[in-house]
């Protein structure tokens, strides 16, 4: 029981917040709707951590590398004014292609630092943000909607996706049940990625990834090429994260460039840790659960803080909760073993 303290804490916190929200007269249908949307909006990014966790490379704090791939893919799609749900899928395809290239380089770095991927990932991600910032400022894009109005040169920090594919996935097959709006298309897309990830670990390459994560020495003796397997897992992670940022951006409605993705890895990391991952082998279900709990805290704390306290409080609390969970996981990692499987 001891090892589920964060989960118990968050669930109690959530229940308390739900009651307060109802008491404060905040419409509950909207809250449920929001938490479903936010689950998928952030969930794909959280799912993207799984292949790297399972190959034993730890939590991917270098998520900004993958996010940059997604942003570049979307920027290309926006440049050619692709719109609607087809435009969105085109953006995903482009992002995945860029992610393969970025993932290869990222895997090359991480394969040099085995056992220290997390800290290296943090700084690889941070420094890559500034490489990309440099790129955004000089990139030869031509769609005037993306460029600074004055001078027509350099990307804007925030690009509205309204005329292109904003909300295209959110509004796909959305279903009204009473007051609650269920984004069926979005949920099925999320489920599809989850199922594909689940099936991946049933294949040959998936079992190789799991074997390397479980015990590198055994895997080597079994004739598995460790570096290659790790690279594949890292590239898969990068591709899924690139898709994840596409889902995030279309739901948010804006493409945020430059320094915006700097801190995005940390909420995703705490979500997967909240789901019960021990920093090693993680299941898709844990990622689902963790994201749902974590994002529900986001959804409930926002309007509550506005109604009861000061607006900044919710943001500060979110940062504290997200880092508190990561710190807790780091502290009590030793007590957990990777043998427990949920």
């Amino acid at each position: 029981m001891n090892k589920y303290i964060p989960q118990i804490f968050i669930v109690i916190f959530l229940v308390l917040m739900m009651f307060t929200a109802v008491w404060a007269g905040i419409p509950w249908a909207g809250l449920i709707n929001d938490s479903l949307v936010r689950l998928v909006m952030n969930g794909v990014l959280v799912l993207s951590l799984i292949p790297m966790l399972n190959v034993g490379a730890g939590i991917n704090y270098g998520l900004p590398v993958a996010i940059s791939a997604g942003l570049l893919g979307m920027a290309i799609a926006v440049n050619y004014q692709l719109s609607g749900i087809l435009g969105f899928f085109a953006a995903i395809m482009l992002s995945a292609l860029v992610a393969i290239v970025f993932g290869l380089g990222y895997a090359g770095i991480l394969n040099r630092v085995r056992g220290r991927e997390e800290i290296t990932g943090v700084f690889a991600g941070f420094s890559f943000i500034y490489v990309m910032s440099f790129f955004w400022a000089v990139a030869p894009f031509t769609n005037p909607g993306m460029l600074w109005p004055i001078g027509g040169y350099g990307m804007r920090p925030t690009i509205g996706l309204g005329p292109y594919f904003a909300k295209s996935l959110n509004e796909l097959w959305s279903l009204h049940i009473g007051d609650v709006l269920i984004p069926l298309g979005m949920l099925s897309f999320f489920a599809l990625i989850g199922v594909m990830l689940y099936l991946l670990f049933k294949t040959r390459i998936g079992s190789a990834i799991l074997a390397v994560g479980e015990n590198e020495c055994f895997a080597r003796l079994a004739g598995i090429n460790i570096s290659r397997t790790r690279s594949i897992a890292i590239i898969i992670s990068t591709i899924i994260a690139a898709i994840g940022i596409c889902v995030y951006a279309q739901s948010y409605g804006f493409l945020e460039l430059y320094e915006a993705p700097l801190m995005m890895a940390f909420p995703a990391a705490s979500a997967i840790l909240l789901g019960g991952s021990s920093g090693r082998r993680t299941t898709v279900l844990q990622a689902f659960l963790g994201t749902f709990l974590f994002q529900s805290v986001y959804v409930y704390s926002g309007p509550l803080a506005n109604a009861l306290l000061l607006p900044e409080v919710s943001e500060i609390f979110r940062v504290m909760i997200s880092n508190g969970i990561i710190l807790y996981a780091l502290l009590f990692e030793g007590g957990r073993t990777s043998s427990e499987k949920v």
Partner: protein
Amino acid sequence: MKRSSVVTLVFLLLSALGWYYSGIGPVFLCNEVLTRFIRDAVLVLALLIPIAAGMGINFAITVGAMSAQVGFLTAIIMNIWGLAGLSVTLLVTLVAAIVTGWLVGLILNRVKGKEMITTIIIGFLANGLYQFVYLVGYGTFIPAFNQEILLSRGIGVRNMVDLAGYRNLMENIWMIEVGDIHIPLFMIMVVLLFCVVVAYIMNTRFGQRVRAVGQDMEKAAALGIDVNKTRLQAIILSTVLAGLGQILYLQNIGMINVYTAHMNSDIFSAAALLAGGATLKEARVRNVILGIFLFHTLFIVSPQAGQNLLGNAALGEYFRSFVAYGTIALALVFNETSQNIRGNKLCRIRNLFRKNKGPGVEPSI
């Protein structure tokens, strides 16, 4: 040639090129670099002892920096200025830094082998707590004795708090002017004194203990050294130094940017230290001094160089941020390669018999 000196050479080259293209005069550059040397040197010095103790870069020096801000804000909230104010500031900073340093040390003793990522997360968490206290607490659970720094809505401290009472209090002592270059001799002596003290500490019995722990925890324990206590002391010392460093930094600037002044103090200090030729396992005082001059020269000239070379100052800023983070990333990548080989050997022998466990926790970085 060692890899760390390659880093220094690259910085030298980049700084020289940046300076050439920036068109900044040597007098201005000298004054700026001297100011930044006074501001940042002690913060960088704070990183040395944890590195010697084998804990890598202590990114939680932001916690020490926040302690200093807590010190200043406490004095200001209590409306104490002048020498008395400085004493209150010092006292509160020391107490806060010792307590927080002790907490950080306790945490780090539980996460051996993962110190650096943990200190980063501790920094973020402490930042949230700090912002909460001053943004929400002031005017609610902290009585607002000083109305001047209160936000107009009645809760929270303003973004900028003036330290006019302390500004240039010490800079003007023994100010020497060589041509147009202002050399605040007293402050330079203070900073150099800190350098000497840290160098001295590293050579005392305590320093030897720290280094023994840093080289091999198991051997140090076999020699009868209390490893956890030594690591705890190293972190407390580092946090206290960071607190003092931030006091020097803030009084030099003359105002507190309450919610952001401590941010990035860890990154820039670490990058400066590595630019001076330090590695994640070995850092000396001379790396601190050389590193600050190189790193901050690059920092000062890059926006202007970006403007002149590429017609956009922002490009220079992105470049320098990339250099700051990239230097740390590079140090991590090169540091691990040497470790990796040993790690794999260990793995072969030890882990063959331990299923379900990853590579064992390695004692050093």
